[in-house]
């Protein structure tokens, strides 16, 4: 029953199949074509072609420029060459002919003759020797005289001898000819050199041009470029456009389950990243040079391209070749819009990559990955919070656009630490954090409840610079940004909370016995003097010294009289640790009377007319119902409402308040910053932030589609709209700016509402904080890639932390100013030293070098670090001593300095540089005084220069500009007049370098004496010389000077080194470990031996070697020299108990302590050239290298005299000095 089948051999229809084949073949071809075209059309290839074209254009322009520049020289060279050629061509020709002839005719012939003669001689020798053998066979061996030869042999012998003589003669002839040849060829060479000299010149003139031309050729002409690379499908054969990649050897991509090699292909598009000079308006991204090639990318930089790649700092997807796929993240809205238009960028671009790129303004956050163990990361921004506020000006390099707004990760970390963020948020950098706020366990003895209540509601209303944040009246609690209807209600609610917290704090407070000293009368006048001179101003600011720069380490004391009581303040000033054992306020070892005077003065002088107090109406119905509601709510989890109500009803008002207050202290995490009884072990209430920089965006609460907030700029006070992008940094910024803003528009139960307080940070502080937080990422970095500080670097980092915590910078200057400028030869130079004058009138400024200037130009550098590399570990001033006294060169820190000549010819330390407008000064804010002000355009501007006059009462000033402000059309040396409300911030040079107290002392003196501290004459001729002897010593290069064990002892137990000082080194209460670190810090920083260093000066053998075995006489002589009326060290220096004549302000330190305190090599160098160490010091130079002085007292060259004084100082206790001044 089979149905008839179609008769076919195949199970399929060929015809139909052909059609299918045809179409699939076509489709395949089409897709191949599509693939090929698509490949040819890839984004990065367009970038490369574009770049090549523009780079060729650039090369052409450079060639043109070179041509133009070199044209004359080139023509000149060519012309000279031609001229010379014409002039000497015949000579050359003649010489060549002569040479040729000589070679061809004479030398050739002579050479041939020698060769023939040699050949002939060989034959003759053979014949002679074979006959001689026969002869020997017959006559036996033994020495045979040729005279006894038979005739035939004899003839042969003579023939050989004659021929040998002939050859010698012929060789001689040949040698003569060769000599002739050499001299002719030398002459020819000389002649030709006259021409080749121009060839070399031409080559050097065209070399650069040729390189550029080859560069053009490489991507422009030839089969490879014109055909292969421009034909789809063919372009793989030998591509010009190709993927550029790098594989940093020690870096891996962490793919959660496994690790893969990290490959960065960023350079494929960023083709000029390692090129020099792709900057300015003509080169936009991706074709720009890296802005800091000195630090990154270039092979000689510490972070080279080959070792580090790109993504380790920038993040993003290194293996993607598209703009979107590589996870670019825009810096701001403007850039985002630009990218959307240009590259079709969308926020989704980086959604699927865990590490999207770091927006450029936060790029320095990446430093934390490897440099987290530094206290301050070099080059990653200033540390001080105050300086952070000027970050836009910091280090603008040439990349105005990208780096102008970048932020200091150092400042961010410092803000985090100083404002006590770690009190609530755990952070790996701050594992055992101190509590940053005052101790509240005995608060009842210090404050009044009404003050605390008012303070809690708005701390900045009392003290604008306080670090205490605001907890009430925020965007979810009735503040200005609270958009809900019941703001007034909320304010009452806030009052209940503040009042309850106050009640609780006073209830938990432990009483304190604070007796005032008996029989003492307070003297506020003396209190004022003590307050100004003892050193209080090193940490505290007061508004009556308006330009005392930034002493805000401790609280501003301007209204302290409204806050405190005498008994408490007296004890606090006298012994701060009694009230706050782990506080930072040190003891100044004050007498009872002094403490009483200071406390009385502060209370009397520092208050306003309207004392700061407040309290709520506790009988108000709302107050009571809110209070009850808080209590009931608290019990609701466990009890029925009626029982909860009953609990509340059973309490007295005070009980209610303290009950609610305690809950609030827990809720707001007050114990994160303050010690509170019963909460000693309380944990921080916030989220850990150690890995917050890699927080998944999905887990971040962006609120209810909140895209913008209308806020206020906290610097200018102008209204401003802040946008919220869907990025982590945008969210972080907003969270810090308005911590509770994401509650907006949502209903939240009280217990779920945001409770983070508002620190009222300014925009740039926020940026710095975001940078820091953003840098705390969870990421795998191999140990080998990390900085891992060791040795000196580790000691320095440890020291810096203690220096920060003790605010040593408040009183001591640690560094000098640094500038870079162009000298008369347009060479860029650096100098370390100080500004001595800025004259607006003469349009000139002066800078005094504290380091040798030109010594270092040998290496094209003039900074101190370079000096140290050149001269070994020693400083330049010591090199000065070397040339003064070469026979005394000793091995200092293992480096022997031999190249003395180069030192002696240079400008000595102390040289004053004149810097005019044309000097092209580059400096950061640490150099000149800087001021941030609100200009006529309403924007904040930054000016460098100097205050030229000031009205201290009004707080207004005039400011002489050192650099122009183009946006305002102000030239250099223009004068800016500013009133207080326009001054945003004054940045004194000492801020970055330390030594603020010195400024405060000067200002106080100027104010008391009615002098103008900003008048150059009055400042330099009166204020500075008067105050200098009373300023805490400058610690620049201190490690060269002091012995580490002495520093340790001194830090543990300070004593008066300079008895005329009114300012006093406080007792900080360092642990032994801290004091050790700090003492070592100085040695490490100045690269000296530490902690122990053996000095052989006091060894018997040393003294014997110096003095023909008469050590006593040697020291006797040295002692006589020191007392010689022409030297007389003790005219100024103290010796033990013995003080010099005259006013104490002209005294100098006790020489009987020198052997414990000072390093001998320092003593010697210092005596030789005090100005070489510290230009302007009162110590005169008494010994000159080229002049013999004081020979009656000590007959020796000056070098020996200085050596002898040093030896005596180091042997003080065994010397006649000690005998004449028993201690």
């Amino acid at each position, binding site marked *: 029953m089979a149905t008839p089948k179609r008769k076919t051999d195949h199970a399929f229809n060929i015809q139909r199949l052909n059609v299918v084949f045809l179409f699939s073949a076509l489709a395949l071809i089409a897709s191949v074509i599509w693939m090929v075209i698509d490949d040819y059309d890839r984004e990065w290839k367009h970038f490369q072609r574009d770049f090549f074209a523009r780079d060729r254009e650039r090369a052409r322009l450079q060639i043109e420029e070179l041509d133009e520049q070199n044209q004359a020289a080139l023509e000149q060279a060519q012309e000279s060459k031609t001229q010379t050629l014409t002039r000497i061509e015949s000579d050359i020709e003649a010489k060549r002919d002569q040479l040729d002839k000589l070679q061809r005719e004479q030398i050739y012939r002579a050479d041939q003759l020698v060769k023939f003669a040699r050949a002939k001689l060989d034959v003759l020798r053979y014949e002679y020797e074979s006959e001689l053998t026969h002869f020997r066979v017959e006559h036996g061996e033994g020495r045979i005289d040729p005279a006894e030869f038979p005739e035939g042999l004899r003839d042969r012998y003579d023939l050989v001898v004659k021929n040998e003589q002939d050859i010698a003669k012929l060789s001689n002839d040949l040698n003569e000819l060769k000599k002739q040849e050499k001299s002719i060829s030398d002459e020819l060479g000389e002649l030709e050199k006259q021409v080749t000299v121009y060839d070399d010149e031409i080559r050097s003139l065209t070399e650069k041009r040729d390189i550029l031309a080859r560069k053009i050729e490489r991507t422009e002409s030839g089969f490879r470029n014109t055909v292969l690379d421009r034909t789809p499908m063919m372009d793989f054969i030998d591509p010009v456009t190709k993927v550029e990649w790098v594989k940093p050897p020690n870096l891996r991509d962490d793919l959660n389950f496994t690790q893969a090699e990290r490959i960065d292909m960023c350079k494929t598009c960023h083709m000029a990243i390692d090129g020099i000079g792709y900057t300015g308006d003509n080169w936009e991204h991706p074709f720009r040079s890296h802005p800091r090639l000195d630090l990154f990318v270039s092979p000689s930089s510490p972070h080279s391209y080959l070792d580090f790649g790109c993504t380790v700092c920038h993040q993003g997807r290194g293996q993607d070749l598209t703009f979107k796929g590589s996870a670019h993240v825009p810096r701001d809205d403007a850039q985002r819009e630009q990218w959307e238009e240009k590259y079709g960028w969308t926020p989704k671009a980086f959604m699927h990559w865990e590490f999207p790129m770091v927006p450029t303004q936060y790029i320095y956050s990446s430093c934390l990955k490897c440099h987290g163990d530094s206290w301050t990361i070099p080059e990653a921004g200033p540390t001080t919070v105050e300086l952070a506020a000027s970050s836009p000006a910091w280090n603008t390099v040439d990349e105005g656009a990208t780096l102008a707004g970048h932020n200091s990760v150092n400042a961010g970390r410092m803000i985090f630490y100083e404002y006590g963020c770690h009190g609530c948020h755990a952070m790996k950098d701050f594992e055992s954090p101190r509590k940053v706020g005052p101790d509240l366990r005995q608060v009842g003895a210090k404050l009044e409840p009404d003050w605390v209540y008012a303070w809690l509601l708005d701390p900045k209303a009392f003290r604008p610079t306080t670090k205490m944040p605001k907890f009430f009246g925020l965007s979810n609690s009735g503040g200005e940004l609270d958009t809900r209807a019941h703001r007034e209600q909320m304010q009452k609610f806030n009052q209940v909370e503040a009042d309850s917290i106050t009640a609780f704090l006073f209830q938990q407070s432990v009483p304190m016995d604070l007796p005032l000293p008996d029989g003492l009368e307070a003297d506020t006048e003396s209190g004022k003097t003590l307050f100004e001179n003892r050193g209080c101003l090193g940490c505290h600011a007061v508004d009556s010294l308006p330009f005392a720069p930034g002493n805000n380490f401790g609280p501003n004391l301007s209204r302290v009289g409204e806050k405190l009581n005498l008994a408490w303040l007296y004890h606090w000033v006298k012994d701060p640790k009694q009230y706050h054992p782990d506080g930072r306020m040190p003891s100044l070892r004050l007498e009872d009377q002094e403490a009483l005077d200071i406390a009385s003065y502060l209370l009397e002088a520092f208050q306003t007319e309207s004392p700061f107090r407040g309290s709520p109406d506790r009988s108000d119905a709302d107050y009571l119902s809110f209070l009850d509601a808080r209590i009931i709510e608290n019990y609701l989890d466990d009890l029925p409402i009626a029982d909860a109500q009953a609990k509340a009803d059973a309490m007295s008002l005070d009980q209610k308040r303290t009950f609610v207050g305690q809950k609030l202290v827990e809720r707001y995490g007050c114990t994160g910053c303050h010690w509170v009884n019963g909460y000693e072990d309380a944990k921080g209430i916030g989220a850990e932030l150690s890995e917050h920089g890699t927080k998944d965006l999905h887990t971040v609460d962006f609120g209810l589609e909140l895209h913008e907030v209308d806020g206020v700029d906290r610097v200018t006070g102008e209204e401003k709209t802040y946008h919220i992008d869907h990025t982590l940094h945008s969210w972080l910024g907003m969270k810090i700016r308005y911590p509770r803003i994401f509650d907006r528009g949502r209903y939240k139960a009280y217990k779920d509402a945001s409770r983070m307080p508002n620190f009222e940070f300014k925009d740039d502080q926020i940026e710095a904080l975001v940078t820091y937080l953003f840098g705390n990422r969870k990421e795998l970095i191999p140990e080998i890639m990390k900085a891992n500080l060791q040795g000196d670097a580790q000691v320095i980092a440890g020291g810096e932390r203690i220096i920060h915590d003790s605010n040593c910078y408040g009183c001591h200057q640690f560094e000098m100013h640094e500038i870079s400028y162009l000298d008369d030869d347009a060479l860029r130079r650096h100098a370390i030293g100080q500004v*001595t*004058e800025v004259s607006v009138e003469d349009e000139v400024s*002066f800078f*005094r070098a504290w380091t040798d200037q030109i010594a270092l130009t040998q290496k094209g550098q003039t900074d101190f670090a370079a000096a140290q590399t050149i001269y070994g570990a020693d400083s330049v001033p010591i090199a000065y001593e070397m040339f003064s006294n070469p026979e005394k060169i000793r091995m200092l820190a293992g480096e022997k300095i031999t190249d003395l000549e180069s030192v002696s010819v240079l400008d*000595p330390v*102390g*040289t*004053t540089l*004149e810097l005019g407008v044309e000097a092209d000064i580059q400096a950061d804010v640490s150099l000149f005084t800087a001021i941030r002000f609100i200009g006529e355009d309403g924007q904040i501007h930054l000016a460098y220069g100097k205050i030229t006059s000031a009205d201290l009462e009004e707080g207004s000033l005039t400011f002489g500009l050192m650099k122009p402000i183009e946006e305002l059309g102000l030239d250099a040396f223009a004068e800016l007049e500013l009133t207080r409300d326009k001054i945003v911030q004054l940045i004194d040079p000492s801020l970055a370098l330390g030594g603020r107290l010195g400024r405060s002392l000067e200002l106080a003196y100027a104010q008391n004496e*009615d002098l103008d501290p900003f*008048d*150059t*004459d*009055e400042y*330099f*001729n009166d204020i500075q*010389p008067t105050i200098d002897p009373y300023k805490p010593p400058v610690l620049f290069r201190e490690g060269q000077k002091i012995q580490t064990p002495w520093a340790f002892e001194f830090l543990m137990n300070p004593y008066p080194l300079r008895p005329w000082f009114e300012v006093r080194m406080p007792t900080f209460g360092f642990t032994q470990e801290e004091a050790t670190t700090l003492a070592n810090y100085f040695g490490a920083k100045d690269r000296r031996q530490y902690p122990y260093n053996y000095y052989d000066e006091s060894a018997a053998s040393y003294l014997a070697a110096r003095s023909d075995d008469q050590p006593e006489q040697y020291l006797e002589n040295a002692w006589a020299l020191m007392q010689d*009326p*022409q*030297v*007389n060290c003790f*005219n*100024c220096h103290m010796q033990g108990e013995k003080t*010099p*004549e*005259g*006013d104490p*302000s*002209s005294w100098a330190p006790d020489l009987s302590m020198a052997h414990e305190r000072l390093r001998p090599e320092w003593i010697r160098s210092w005596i030789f050239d*005090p*100005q070489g160490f510290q*230009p*302007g*010091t*009162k*110590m*005169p*130079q*008494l010994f000159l290298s080229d002049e013999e*002085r*004081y020979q009656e007292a000590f007959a020796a060259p000056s070098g020996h005299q200085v050596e002898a004084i040093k030896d005596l100082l180091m042997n003080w206790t065994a010397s006649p000095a000690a005998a004449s001044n028993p201690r």
Partner: protein
Amino acid sequence: MFAKHAMSLATWGVLSLGLVAGLSAEENTPAKPAGGSITGKCLIDGNVPAAGKLKIDKDVEVCGKRSDVDKSLMVAKNKGIQNVVVSIKKIDAPDGWPKAQLARIFDQKDCEFVSRVMIVPVGSQIDIKNSDPVLHNVHTYSRRNTPINQGIPAGQSLKQKLEKEETIKVTCDVHKWMLSWIVVAGHPYYTLTNEDGSFELKNVPPGTYELIAWHESLGKSKTKHKKVEVKADGTVEGIDFEFKPKN
């Protein structure tokens, strides 16, 4: 030339007013068209203060010889202030000025700088001497020139070149009371007031100038003389400056 001034020094026996004359255009700018003169007085605006006394408390054997009168402010009965530096602001030095770089002697005698205020042309070399048997150190508070602080033993001296215009305070750190001023002048139109506070600027080229007066302890005079017109061979009189006393 120097001998003449040395004589005048001996005659007056006090300050180096004579040295100042050495600067005058008369001697340094020969064969120039005749200039005019400017005369006036520097006066104190208030009571004549009594001269202060110095505390001589070191090396008394030698230093006791000097008078203990504080010369930082000397006002005559007619209220004239001595040692005020009067100069023309922003004027070019005549061609060829200064004619020769003469070494100026800057001596220390009886623990006092012999010249209280000394005006020297820019580029001068000063010869710092110590005529006392005790050590002095010369400490200059230069802001523009490179400062020095060198001990100068008895009878010795030190040469120092002053390259830049400025007014330099000079002290000795051994003897706190020792104080002197060196005015490094960029042009010849500088002068010092006499004991009675009067001054004369000679050979000023015709033109309109601003004048300024500065005193070491009173600072700059607030009196403004912004447009003083000088005619050839004429004398402008009555250019007086008033100084407010301190405190």
